[in-house]
């Protein structure tokens, strides 16, 4: 850690390419998601993580690298990060990573981060709050555990980065407000969307991004990998049955005379009577 102080700040951001879930359709025959119905985009939460890293680099100097695990097309999500201002991107892509749940995902990313640490050191790792497809929010804390560093989840502000002492202070959003937390570097943050607004990319970034080719690593580029912990094999969870949630058939409407309407709706509310007895939420 002490030598890190003399080196430029290196921030690593983990990013995922996801289908745009606002558009995705469910195939009614198979009850599975028709991924071709939705364009692949950079996970929106990860855009905030990259933006935060770029802003920290503007203050402290150094470098921002993004890391993604995914199929070759995920290069496009990395290019999007370069547009936001990332300096470099690495894609780990290999059939043997496929079918990973969060445990196997965090293992693969951890192995890649180990290599990056060895090559050039890492001071801070950022992740999004969650990916909008798998939607678990489990990958970030998993990576931190594997690296033996602290995960600080739900971060909505980076209050201070102290390079001299290699410490960081952040606001961690909790139900009643926020916690001010201090941690040693390196550590891992998962960021909330309100941490920043993603700014419009300057033209030079866009030009650079269009031509950018990320480095691609396979399993063979990583050291001491236990193949059994990767992909489907390394995933304790499996997705069983899938079905579309019940679509509302629309409301039962009470129409007509006001007195009767009030009576009708009161009947519905009084079934939940015990709810209204407690203390109010505010």
């Amino acid at each position: 850690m002490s030598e890190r102080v003399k080196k430029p700040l290196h921030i690593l951001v983990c990013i995922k390419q996801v289908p745009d879930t606002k558009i995705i359709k469910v195939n009614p025959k198979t009850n599975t998601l028709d991924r071709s119905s939705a364009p692949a985009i950079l996970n929106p939460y990860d855009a905030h993580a990259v933006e935060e890293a770029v802003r920290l680099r503007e203050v402290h100097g150094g470098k921002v690298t993004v890391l993604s695990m995914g199929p070759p097309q995920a290069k496009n999500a990395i290019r999007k990060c370069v547009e936001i201002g990332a300096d470099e991107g690495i894609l780990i892509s290999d059939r043997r990573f496929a079918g990973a749940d969060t445990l196997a995902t965090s293992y693969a990313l951890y192995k890649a981060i180990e290599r990056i640490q060895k090559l050039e050191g890492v001071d801070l790792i950022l992740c999004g709050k969650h990916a909008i497809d798998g939607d678990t929010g489990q990958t970030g804390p998993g990576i931190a555990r594997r690296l033996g560093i602290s995960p600080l989840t739900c971060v909505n502000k980076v209050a201070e980065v102290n390079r001299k002492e290699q410490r960081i202070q952040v606001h961690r959003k909790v139900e009643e407000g926020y916690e001010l937390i201090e941690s040693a570097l390196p550590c891992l943050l998962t960021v909330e969307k309100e941490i920043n607004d993603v700014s419009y990319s300057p033209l030079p970034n866009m030009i650079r991004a269009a031509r950018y080719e990320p480095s691609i690593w396979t399993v063979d580029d990583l050291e001491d990998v236990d193949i059994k912990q990767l992909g489907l094999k390394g995933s304790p969870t499996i997705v069983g049955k899938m079905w579309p949630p019940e679509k509302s058939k629309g409301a039962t409407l009470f129409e007509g005379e006001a007195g009767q309407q009030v009576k009708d709706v009161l009947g519905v509310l009084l079934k939940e009577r015990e709810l209204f007895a407690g203390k109010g939420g505010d």
Partner: protein
Amino acid sequence: MRVNIDDYRGVWVYIEQKKGQLLDVGLELLAAGRDLADKLEVDLCGVLLGEEVKSLTKDVFEAGADKVYLIDDPVLHYYRTETYMTAVGDLVRKYKPEIFLYGATSNGKDLASAVATDVLCGLTADTTLMDVDVEKRLFEASRPAFGGNIMATILCKKHRPQMATVRPKVIKRLPLQAGRTGEVIEETINVKEEDLQTKVLKIVKDAKKAVNLEEASVIVAAGKGIKDEKGFAMVRELAETLNASLGASRDVVEAGICGHDHQVGQTGVTVTPKVYIAIGISGAIQHLVGMQNSELIIAINNDREAPIFQAAHYGIVADAFTVVPMLTTAFKEA
């Protein structure tokens, strides 16, 4: 990480507390856990960590637990991943539960993710439905994914424990059974403050955040149909009568009728109360994404074609200015 499944028995629930107060979600999970434990014919155990929290075990038993694993230590005063993960991970390795549930709160999700990686087991996120295949002792946890477009059942056949985080407010609590008690198993944590990487310096209450919509079980929300402050006061009166929190659409917030803390939707908060009453809200998609998972949605709108009626369970097609005061009076008298 391959384990002998038969070594693992019992259903565990993480009992989250804050400043010595139990969160409701722990009690909800004890209700779900009771059902699973009865089906599997095993004990239901609570896991309680903190500083000076021993007195809380009473409530945990009354809510259905047979045993409580307790670790009471000043180092656990604030939630921190590194301490809580170590403590819970050690308990799991020592006592080997087959199912372990956590509330899907900020800290519950954080802890469960870290523990799953620590003990190398599967973890299902944000579960909303639970069941168990008794013969195979297989836990079936179902959850929404892909932005709510699909429900999926997640299984974990070859590893133990089978862990899941469960959304608050999807399970009904059991009535407390006064006098019900059980066995407290006290353990210790072997971590020194000076060896830790993180410190919680302080907890700052958000003074502006007087409303906590995320945790409200009843919400009455106002839309632009209520027109102005006077209409908002009418809605507020209904909310007060129902002991509900006040929500609002963006148009109401932007008109300066109430603060942004009240805004429900894409750029506001996402809520999942038991009851959501939408008054004069048209039901734009950006509003719906923030409230459509509420358990019971009632809409009041004078336009029969308003999209809110598609998302609602019950609708009153009427002038809010007539119906809302009547409803307030009727509820007071009921």
